């Protein structure tokens, strides 16, 4: 393993916030599953909790961590190390630590109580969402030098994807209720990784039958294996594009 990643991971693991995050996820998951006798219901409850907390913690913690690493970055830059390597290592280190705590906190209970397709899908979706929001954190922290502003941008982005986006969609749906826009809606979800993740899981639970006509259209698309592949590919783009933009900016940054 790359030595810089090692130092970053060790540093993050020493950080108590990641430990607390793991413990909270773990308490949530174990209690959700032991409260419900039906593991599908448990998954559904857990899904909503995960889709709120995981992005928030990933994006805010990563943004703060990147700002606090400015000294570390500066120290490494005067050494014979490639700029992009420093940025990549930070990305890998942060993602790896957050993925690890997600796996310990949520993955183990899921595999224990719901070792089904949906359970595995949920785990995968959680991994993707974590990494997507780490990538978004890289973007928001390179946009501005001001730490408070950067964290503000990160929180606004989380708010937008977790809450505002759905509100906007509902608004559009009601405004254009008379028009056949259901198919377009499938495309619109690609602009929100959290929605994409939610739909991917919901459609693999039996509850999707209750979602009406729009639900049927969604099922038509996301229910097929091609649809799933495309959805995961879009999630992958949500990792690559923000991080790639941040990398380009970091290469030109004056320190």
């Amino acid at each position, binding site marked *: 393993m790359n030595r810089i990643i090692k130092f970053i991971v060790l*540093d993050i693991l020493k950080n108590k916030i990641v430990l607390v995050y793991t413990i909270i996820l773990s308490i949530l998951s174990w209690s959700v599953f032991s409260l419900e006798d039906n593991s599908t219901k448990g998954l559904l409850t857990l899904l909503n909790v995960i889709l709120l907390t995981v992005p928030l913690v990933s994006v805010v913690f990563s943004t703060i961590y990147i700002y606090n690493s400015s000294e570390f970055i500066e120290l*490494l*830059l*005067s*050494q*014979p*190390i490639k700029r992009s390597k420093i940025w990549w290592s930070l990305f890998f280190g942060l993602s790896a630590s957050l993925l690890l705590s997600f796996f310990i906190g949520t993955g183990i209970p899921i595999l224990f109580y719901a070792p089904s397709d949906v359970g595995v899908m949920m785990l995968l979706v959680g991994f993707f969402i974590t990494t997507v929001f780490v990538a978004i954190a890289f973007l928001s922290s390179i946009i501005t030098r001001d730490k408070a502003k950067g964290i503000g941008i990160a929180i606004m982005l989380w708010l937008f994807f977790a809450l505002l986006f759905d509100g906007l969609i509902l608004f559009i749906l009601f405004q254009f209720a008379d028009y056949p826009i259901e198919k377009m809606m499938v495309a619109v979800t690609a602009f929100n990784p959290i929605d994409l993740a939610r739909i991917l899981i919901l459609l693999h639970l039996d509850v999707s039958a209750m979602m009406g006509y729009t639900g049927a259209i969604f099922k038509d698309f996301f229910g097929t294996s091609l649809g799933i592949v495309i959805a995961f590919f879009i999630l992958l783009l949500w990792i690559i594009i923000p991080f790639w933009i941040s990398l380009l900016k970091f290469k030109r940054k*004056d*320190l």
Partner: protein
Amino acid sequence: MIEINNLSKSFGKLKVLNSVNLSCKQGECIALIGPNGCGKTTLIKSILGMVIPSEGTIKFKEEYISKNFEYRKHIGYMPQIGRYPDNMTIGQILEMIKEIRKSEEKLDEDLLHQFKLQALFNKRMSTLSGGTTQKVSATLAFLFNPDVLILDEPTAGLDPLASEILKEKIITEKQKGKLILITSHLLSELDDLITQIIFMQDGVVQFHKTIDDLKSSTGEERISKAIAKILKDRNNE
């Protein structure tokens, strides 16, 4: 060894460096002086690749430094204000840099011993005084026996004893034929070290002269007086 060609750098509207041309060769000990905010640190950071120039090129050992990073292993850099990860100890910082560099060459730990840093190995960087932080920076700069030493205000914040140790070290390295670049605005303490002077003002190199040249052209024995005289003459023009 270092060739700077037409280097310019602007931060927004502020032009910090304005077509700087410089050439530094091995064995020279150069003082980079000038008033605060004249672009000394920006120039140094450009050489290190920490600041990306707006225009112009820098060559290190006949190779362009843009998109290159290997050349930095030949440079020991001591920043003006060393910034280190707060929650790491002195020992961890040194270990980390050593591990990342994994240099096969023999480490130069003279300063480590002379500054008695081993006694402080378990102290966190955030608890260190400015002077001790400077000692760590100096130790790191000399640690890998680099061919070029770039020292940004090396003695600022050091107590007289430590400052003397550092000066002795600089002289020893100079005698080994290394290129040493020092910035400072305190002239007197440089008198016995340097062979050349670069004077910068408002992002422009005003002159680059050898000490003998400077002394003979002004007729002054002390460097500070010689520079003051040149500046006065220019103001009168």
